[in-house]
């Protein structure tokens, strides 16, 4: 399995006043997408790069699927872990196909196997092979380069993926599209993903859970919802902009705030929405229609009612779900 465990992991660079990573202990479950979030210099990238041993910890141990990674040869370990970095880091002298083929070649796959894998991956990241196989990175847009970067990282079919601010240098629109792609790929492939970001929106959108770091330490490791509603301290609160009610409502589901159907329920042309929609959608619907009450439906059946008061309570207390 691809569980990643950090056990009291520290790294102090020579002559640094404080450790870059300081006694980090946590566990990332198989198939989970975890974002490491924090301001620059908080040690998030350092923590990530210890997983594929680009950095070696000065204390503690890291386990991948129960095995201490120090017991593996660094090159063998890295071939088992997909790695995506900022600005893609594609090899400029190789075609898209050759870039993707790097790890399969290192793993000693057969030629036909590698060719099939290249086409499969290009389909997966939505770059038609016929058109893109033989292009060079310089002939691709930034977004396309990063798609190839993701395909390349997936080439050896690793169970674990490390992503170091992969979309840091990409414009907002392309970035949104790529984030959706990651979520789609994740549903499809179920990899264990560790994703470094300094962007709160990106983290909230992607993560199953978020590790919030500050000065080398984990401040809080929780779901986006818990981070927003129960921040560990004022640092987490302000980092996540937890005072942004609209953002918070966007993460809460209607089902968390509605009340059950009253006995005397009549539809009476109330606007309706799904229980899986966000409270932000509900608020928007109330403002748009001017309705006092919304009816909540699931599988075509009304299951509850929602008013503006319910939304407000939920935003203040934030203890739904």
């Amino acid at each position: 399995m691809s569980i990643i465990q950090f056990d009291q992991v520290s790294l102090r660079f020579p002559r640094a006043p404080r450790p870059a990573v300081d006694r980090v202990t946590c566990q990332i479950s198989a198939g989970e997408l975890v974002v490491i979030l924090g301001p620059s210099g908080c040690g998030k990238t350092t923590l990530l790069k210890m997983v594929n041993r680009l950095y070696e910890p000065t204390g503690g141990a890291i386990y991948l699927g129960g095995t201490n990674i120090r017991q593996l040869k660094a090159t063998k370990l890295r071939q088992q872990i997909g790695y995506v970095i900022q600005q893609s880091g594609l090899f400029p002298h190789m075609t898209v196909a050759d870039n993707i083929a790097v790890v399969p070649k290192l793993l000693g796959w057969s030629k036909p196997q590698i060719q099939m894998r290249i086409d499969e991956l290009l389909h997966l990241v939505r770059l038609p092979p016929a058109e893109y196989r033989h292009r060079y990175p310089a002939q691709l847009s930034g977004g396309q380069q990063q798609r190839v970067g993701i395909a390349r990282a997936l080439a050896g079919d690793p169970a674990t993926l490390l992503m170091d601010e992969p979309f840091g240098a990409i414009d907002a629109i392309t970035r949104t599209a790529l984030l959706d792609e990651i979520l789609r790929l994740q549903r499809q492939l179920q990899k264990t993903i560790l994703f470094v970001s300094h962007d709160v929106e990106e983290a909230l959108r992607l993560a199953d859970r978020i590790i919030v770091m500050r000065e080398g330490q984990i401040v809080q490791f929780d779901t986006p919802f818990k981070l927003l509603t129960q921040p560990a301290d004022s640092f987490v609160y302000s980092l996540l902009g937890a005072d942004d009610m609209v953002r918070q409502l966007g993460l809460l589901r209607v089902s968390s705030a509605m009340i059950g159907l009253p006995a005397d329920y009549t539809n009476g042309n109330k606007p309706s929405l799904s229980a899986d929609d966000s409270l932000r959608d509900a608020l928007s619907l109330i403002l748009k229609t001017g309705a006092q009450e919304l009816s909540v439906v699931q599988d075509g059946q009304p299951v509850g009612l929602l008013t503006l008061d319910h939304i407000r309570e939920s935003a203040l207390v934030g203890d739904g779900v």
Partner: protein
Amino acid sequence: MGFDVGYLTNNFSEVWALLLQHLQMTGLALLVAIALAVPIALLISRFRWLGLPIMGTLGILYTIPSLALIIFLVPLFGLNATSVVVAMVIYTQVILVRNLTVGLNSINPAVIEAARGMGMTAWQRWWRVQVPLVLPVFVAGVRIATIVSIAIATIGAKFNAGGLGKLLFDGIQTNRYDKIWAGSITVALLAFALNALLLWLEKQSNPLRRVKLS
């Protein structure tokens, strides 16, 4: 005094022998120079602080006139081709090391990090990533070094090293313009030919040569 290719056509085998001698000196000097420049450049790209002292020293050596440099070397290596070849090696170092260092440093660090992160060994990174990326810049350096070497080899005749310079110096001493023509035409042709060959190699070594960048 006028244009005269008589000597060249009548004594073709002699000129050919001198040309081969010239090529031999140039080739040997370049081989030794490259064998030295690659490890030096690798050292500099790994230990940046070495760059200034090494490039400084090579730069100073480069400013010494070639004639003077060879004279310095004669007591060490004798009045023969060795002194001349050593001078050529010293001269071309600054060109080769500088080009290699610039080439290695111009590789995007993200590319090297990706190579490491994907599990390439140092050896695989060198041959599959660094060498192909540095090659065009390196070949450009070799081309310039070759031209410089051909020029210095010409002076080599003064030091008993043979080569096409022999025709020039003999011609000047005996007032034989046909010999001077023969020597200068052949040296020029040699330089042009090698320049063209290396320019072609330089283009071939660029992986993006096949594609038009939009």
